[in-house]
Structure formats: structure tokens, C-alpha cells
């Protein structure tokens, strides 16, 4: 019983972390049909920026509470700088290429950013633990958990709700869905697709960076975190169905729970539990749980 509870809590915590990272990826794919490998690098940049800004804040003796602001600032800054730079500077010239070519382009960006962040921040693990410990803990079923996990959960719920609202509740959202459904059509009816792309990619970058910034307090930020994260995020969005918001959420929860279960019950398989789930889901539902359907006229 106690163990089941632990599995649930650990799984959900992991899921909320996964979701924040995956949701940006699935959004960008849904709108732009780009599976963005550099999403992992943006995640890393967010984490690095968070350690720098947070460190700067504390170094000046400002109240530690402010570090949360720094985390947010890091996410926004990275998103606003890297997003437009990559979309306008690079991807824009590449639309119309095959999906794989676009994937490869983002893979190149990933390699470049990997070394760039190394040049900017060095190779030593960096950390900004204050926000993690600051909120204190809660105890349940004999297990102590940091309240920071609750914050993580809250943020991911907020992000999910906000996106769902924008997509379904606002005019911009409707436009976005029009683009998702049919690029040519929406261009024909006078939607400024190029601007939609710019905004979407920037938001995606921001979400990736936010994932990094929110993770930074609980990990050591160092080279390699981007690669480890991106494949995981891929798995989540593919399981959920590329381009589907609800899918990303469900995928994250599924992966989170399975992994937590494996850790508690069967540690040997933890290593590839995620990929096993991904393979299984794809076998049962070839386009993921919530595939976005495409009709074909002949």
C-alpha cells in the first residue's frame, strides 16, 4: 500500500517534469512538422541560464525567494533569444524540405549548442540548489518529499491548462489549429503562416528552457544533459501522438508511472522501460495514443 502510494507520487512527479519538456516539442511538431532535436539543447541552455542568473542574484545578497523569479527570467530570456534566432536564421530557409532533413538540421544545431554551452559555462557541473530546499518538505506515508515537487506539478498543470485554453479558446488558437490541420489552406485564407511559425517556435523554445530552468535546482547542470533529455522527450511525444497536447500529458504520466513502478518493483528493467513502453504503444497504436488524423482524397 505504502509502496503503491510512493509509486504514484514518484511517477506523477517525474511525469510533471517530463510534460513540461515534452509539451514544447509536441507543439512545435504539431504546427511546423519539425521534430526538434535541439529542444534538448534549449532545455540545457535554460538550466545553465538559471544557474547563472540565480547565482548572480544570490551573490548580490538579494533574498533567496527571488531565485524563483530568476528561474522564470532564464526561461523567458533563452526562449526570446534562441527561438527567433534559430527559426528566422535557419529553419525558415529550410521549410519544404523532407521531415528527416529538418530533423537533421536541428541535430546539427544540437551539436553546435552543445559546444557553445561548453564554451560559455565550462564543463564543471553547476547548481542552484536554493529554490529546491527553500520550500521545505511534506511527509506522506512515512516518506518525505520536497514541496518543490508540488511546484513542479503546479507549473506543468498550469502550462497544460494555459496551452489548452489558448488553442481552443482564442482566435490565435483557432488560427494555430488551422495551420496544424492544413498549411496550404491556411496560407490561402490569408493566415500569416510565417509569423505563426515564429511565435510557435519561440514558445516551444521557451517551454524547453523552462523545463531546464525548473530542473536546474534539483540536478547538477553539466554537458550531456541535453542528449539524455531529448530522447526521453521524443519517447513521450511519440507515445502520446506527435502534435497532440493531451497525448503529451498522457505519455508523460504513462512513462512516469511505468518508470516509478520499475524502480520500485523491478530495478533491472528501469534502463529500457521507457523504450519498451514506446515500442509497445506504437505496436498497438501505430501513430501514438492521440494521433492527429489526416484524410486523403483520391
Amino acid at each position, binding site marked *: 500500500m505504502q509502496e503503491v502510494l510512493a509509486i504514484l507520487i514518484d511517477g506523477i512527479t517525474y511525469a510533471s517534469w517530463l510534460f513540461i519538456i515534452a509539451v514544447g516539442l509536441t507543439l512545435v511538431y504539431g504546427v511546423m512538422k519539425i*521534430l526538434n532535436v535541439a529542444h534538448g539543447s534549449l532545455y540545457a541552455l535554460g538550466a545553465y541560464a538559471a544557474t547563472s542568473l540565480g547565482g548572480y542574484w544570490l551573490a548580490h545578497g538579494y533574498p533567496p525567494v527571488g531565485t524563483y523569479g530568476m528561474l522564470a527570467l532564464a526561461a523567458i530570456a533563452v526562449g526570446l533569444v534562441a527561438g527567433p534566432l534559430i527559426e528566422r536564421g*535557419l529553419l525558415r*530557409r*529550410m521549410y519544404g*524540405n523532407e*521531415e*528527416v*532533413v529538418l*530533423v*537533421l*538540421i536541428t*541535430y*546539427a*544545431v*544540437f*551539436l*553546435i549548442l*552543445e*559546444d*557553445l554551452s*561548453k*564554451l560559455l559555462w565550462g564543463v564543471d557541473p553547476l547548481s542552484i540548489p536554493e529554490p529546491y530546499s527553500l520550500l521545505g518538505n511534506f511527509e506522506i506515508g512515512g516518506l518525505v518529499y520536497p514541496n518543490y515537487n508540488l511546484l513542479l506539478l503546479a507549473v506543468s498543470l498550469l502550462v497544460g491548462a494555459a496551452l489548452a485554453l489558448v488553442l481552443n479558446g482564442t482566435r490565435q488558437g483557432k488560427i494555430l489549429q488551422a495551420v496544424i490541420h492544413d498549411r496550404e489552406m491556411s496560407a490561402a485564407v490569408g493566415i500569416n503562416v510565417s509569423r505563426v511559425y515564429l511565435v510557435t517556435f519561440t514558445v516551444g523554445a521557451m517551454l524547453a528552457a523552462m523545463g531546464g530552468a525548473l530542473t536546474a535546482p534539483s540536478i547538477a547542470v553539466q554537458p550531456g544533459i541535453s*542528449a539524455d533529455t531529448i*530522447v526521453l522527450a*521524443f*519517447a513521450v511525444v*511519440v507515445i502520446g501522438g*506527435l502534435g497532440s497536447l493531451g497525448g503529451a500529458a498522457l505519455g508523460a504520466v504513462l512513462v512516469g508511472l511505468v518508470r516509478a513502478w520499475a524502480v520500485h518493483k523491478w530495478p*533491472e528493467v528501469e*534502463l*529500457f522501460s521507457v*523504450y*519498451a513502453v*514506446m*515500442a509497445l504503444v*506504437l*505496436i498497438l497504436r*501505430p*501513430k*501514438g495514443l492521440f494521433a492527429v488524423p489526416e484524410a*486523403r482524397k*483520391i
Partner: protein
Amino acid sequence: MRDRTLVLLAAALAAMLAAGFLLPQWINTLTIAIAWGVVVVGMMLMMRTGLVSFGQGLYYCLGGYSAAVLHKFYDIGDILVMLLAGMLVAAAVAAVLGLLMAKYRDIFFAMLSLAFSMILFGLLVKSEQLGSTDGFGLSVRSVAGAALPQGHERFVVFAGAAVVAFVAALAMHRYLASHLGRLAGAIKDNELRVEYMGESVRKLIHVNYVISAALAGAGGALAAITIGHVDPEMSFWTQSGEFVFITILSGTGSVLAPFLGAIIFETVRSFAYEHSPNTWQMVLGFTMLLVIMFLPGGLWSIFQRRREAA
């Protein structure tokens, strides 16, 4: 047309052997490039069929481990046997997985193949009798029963690889010129029409999938023999990513292109390693971008343009 490629391939083989003979210090890089070229020839076939695998490392790794296991557990040191074993194991696994993979397209094909290669990675990391992430070593003694000449082992391995590459390329060229080869392009263009002409798209994809896997297995075995060591990295997604890159770099223009692409890739990487050890990834990244931007058709498009111009 066919004869021109045959001549071209023969010339390339001769040039290769000459290069290996004159620049022995290049033999290792060349052999690896050739091995990867063989893998990419297979990926080229898939790409012509309209599918790109982000998990070809799966078969590359299976090929390498099959060769290495023969040496470790059965004390077999024959290059030919190892090569065939690598191909067969890869092909056999592909024959089974193909039943499933043939249903998938686009990014889903890429992702599912990635999942399978990462599962193999996980299994190998778990298997401590296979050395986990450290992997284990292998060595070769003979080719088709004939013992390797003392002091010239590396050249023989290299020459063997070159011959294998020659055969693979020629066979692939013939295949692409055949009815089935034409169908590859047809499937990429319009599966519906292929079905409405009365041919099974899934069967064809399955066949091509097995062929490309066999080639990846051969490449893996060659690489393992050349390096003298195997480890799970062979199945990691970044390895497959490099294969995809070389495939795009080469383009689908000619069966010769993959080897050119692989050699250039290896050279660029070695150069970057030696001259900017801290930023070699960045160098690779920019190279990729430049190629994709200015040679969208792959390296071979250069030659094709020249031909059209002439």
C-alpha cells in the same frame, strides 16, 4: 549506364587499394569509412523507398557483436565467417521486426526503429558477461581459411573491406536498376498507385528493410574487425544519427556516393578531433548545415550538375 557505373566502381576499388598501399597511415580511417559506407548503401535503399531509420545502429551493432561473439565464445577468427554471421543475424532479426516496421512511415518509422535500437543498447548494457558498456575485444586470424600474412593483417582487412564494399555497391546498383529497384522510387512517390497496380507495398518495404539490415550487419562486422573491439555505443541513437547524416550528405544519386560521403565525414571528424579538440562537435554541426543548405541533393549532385552542364 550500367557499364559506366561498373567502370566507375572498379576504378574506385583500384584507387582505394592504391591509396591504402601508398598511405598506410590512412588504412584504419579508410577501412572504417568503407564499413560505414556499406551501412549507408543500405540506408540509401531505404531512403529511395521513402523511409529513414534513426535506429540503423541496431543492425550495425548486431553485426559487430555477432562477429565479436564468434571470437569470444567459439574462438572463430575468420573474417569471412564473421562477416557472413553479422549479415545473417542482422537479416534474421530484420526479417522478424520487418513484419512490424513495414507498417510504419515517416517519423514513426524513424522513431520505432530508434526505440528498438535503444532497447538493444539497454540489453547490452545490462549483459555483464558481454562486458556491459566496456564491451569486449576480438581479433582475426584468417580469411576464408587462409591465414593472414604476418605484418600485413591490416592491409588484408582493408582490402577485404574494399572488396565487400565493391560487391555491395555493384549488387545494389543492379538491384536499383531492376523492377524491384524501380518500385522503391514508385513507393516513395505514391503507395496508393503501387497497390492499385497490384503490388504489395508492405512486402516490398519488408524486402528492402531486410536488405538494408543485412548491409548494416556487414558494416558492423567490418567495423568490429577493424577496431578489434565492440561496445553498446554501436547501438546508441547518436551512432544512427551519424549514419543518417552520411546518407543525406551522400544523397541517393549513386551507389558510389555513400563511400565518398563516409570518407569525407571521417576525415572532417578526425581533423576536428585533432585541430579543435574542444569544439569538434561544433565543426561537425556547421559542416552538416553547410551541406544541407548548399548541397540539398547530397555530394553526388555536384557531379550530376556537371554532367547536365556538359
